[in-house]
């Protein structure tokens, strides 16, 4: 079962049907369901009719529906740590109430329309992903491409699992890893800026308390000079934390060698060996 899914939709039906699928899995797994979207409570309940007797589920405390603004922090820009803490409390409360955990399906489009808000939300996505790797919570985060257009890629790239229309690929993914982040895919002129933003998002919350950072590049197939430059800028911003790039692709070594950038970043083999 996927723990953290990014769903990009272009019709309301797509969102609702994806949410129903995700929540149904949670229902069968004994999780408390939380459904969040930009509509009033009655409309939200009506969306979930395929799940069965939703009124009963609500009465049993097995289902909660909430308009999006009530779920996420007040103000225009999310505060990542606070939001993760809020979800942690909800998940623990679900367990205390006899459920196996919390299962969330949320349309967060409205929270990410501005660039600043979106970048902070990226930081939140990475932080909540780390919580969900161990904690009793699963989530489907949904984004409306009609509203966000290409900016939706900012959110897709910080999810390892996603349901997106073909042609809407950020070209790379980033996720919390051991002592840092993992990166997969290919970085080039089409996404180097987004890669820089994702690294900043990681530094913002996930890596804020770290002494050192390990970037697991085992699944990074290719990175060009622009991407490498973004990586080096990140390394400089992360100082005084030491940053190591583990299992780098050939292209990263070639860029560094040909441009004389060897002093600006450190490599390690897989599993942290030098």
């Amino acid at each position, binding site marked *: 079962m996927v723990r953290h899914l990014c769903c990009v939709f272009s019709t309301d039906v797509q969102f609702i049907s994806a949410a129903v699928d995700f929540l149904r899995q949670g229902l069968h797994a004994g999780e408390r369901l939380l459904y969040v979207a930009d509509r009033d409570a009655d409309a939200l309940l009506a969306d979930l009719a395929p799940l069965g007797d939703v009124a009963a589920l609500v009465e049993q405390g097995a289902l909660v529906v909430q308009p999006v603004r009530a779920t996420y922090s007040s103000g225009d820009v999310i505060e990542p740590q606070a939001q993760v803490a809020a979800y942690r409390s909800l998940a623990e409360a679900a367990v205390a109430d006899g459920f196996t955990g919390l299962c969330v399906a949320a349309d967060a489009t409205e929270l990410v329309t501005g660039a600043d808000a979106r970048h902070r939300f990226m930081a939140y996505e990475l932080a909540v992903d780390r919580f969900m790797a161990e904690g009793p919570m699963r989530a489907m985060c949904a984004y409306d491409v009609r509203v966000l257009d290409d900016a939706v890629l900012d959110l897709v790239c910080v999810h390892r699992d996603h349901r997106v229309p073909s042609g809407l690929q950020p070209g790379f993914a980033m996720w919390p890893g051991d002592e840092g982040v993992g990166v997969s895919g290919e970085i*080039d002129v089409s996404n180097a800026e987004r890669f820089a933003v994702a690294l900043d998002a990681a530094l913002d919350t996930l890596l804020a308390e770290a002494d050192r950072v390990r970037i697991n590049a085992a699944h990074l197939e290719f990175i060009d000079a622009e991407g490498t430059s973004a990586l080096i800028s990140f390394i400089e911003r992360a100082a005084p934390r030491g940053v190591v790039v583990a299992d780098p692709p050939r292209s990263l070594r070639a860029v560094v060698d040909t441009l004389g950038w060897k002093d600006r970043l450190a490599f390690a083999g897989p599993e942290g060996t030098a």
Partner: protein
Amino acid sequence: MTIETTRYRHDAFFYSGIDEFIRGTAQFLRDGLAEGAVMLVVLAPEKNERLQAELGPAASSSITFRNMAEVGKNPARIIPVWRDWVQEHLPSGRPLRGIGEPITPERRFDELVECVRHESLLNVAFDGTEPFWLLCPYDVSALEAAVVTEARRTHPSWVRGDEEGASEDYVPVDLHTPFAAPLSPLAAPAETLHFGDEEMRRVRDVTSRAARQAGFSRDREWDLVLAVNELATNSIRHGGGAGTLRVAVDGDRVLCEVADDGWIRDPLIGRVPPGVEGTSGRGLWIANQLCDLVQVHSGPAGTTVRLSMRA
């Protein structure tokens, strides 16, 4: 016409056969030793060994020998080596002398074209105030007449035996359109791909396929992919946002051409290491470091850059 010896001097040294070569170059180096010069010699290993034997061990503290096949397989890599070396030794206040022989009979036609361009660019690679005397040997008994003629066009002065003189045929670099000369036709049929910034992965995939077809190792394949990627990025950034890639496989050699609407004017592009934050010339620098040959054709009608790499 007198030739100044205290400022930058770039001579063609004409010789016929190895004995005359050794006589002339050894004398040049001995004269350098006598004036306390620091020297760099870039030749084929056999010639380096003969000169070292000729000059004896005392010379080694003032003369560094390097293998031209390593330094200058791609002739565009040679100028940065000279410039770095001159920069390093200029503060010593000692005169500087160099010998570099990039043109030998084994060079293929396209390589020769780039060697000639390299020689021509040596005339603008220094500001002229450096006390640097660079000798470029040409074996008139082994090279085609056309090659020797080009040597007269690309060197302001020449030496042979005890004679020296200004070259009446010298033609300075065209600084307005340094890359006006068209490229020779591609030797093999090419796969063509038009690209914008959304097709970069396809650009890399097409290049990868060709590298595998030519039997490249994985590392070499990724190097070619990186070089092509950087050129395509130039098209996106500086060439109007789009370009056309052509990839041809000729046995174990891959030829990749990237064409766009940009106009490259910097004659030394790709021969100067990019600064720490600078992006200008970065793509061509990377291509020159990784590829066997890089050829540029550019003018008001657009630019084509061709890379060549062998397995």
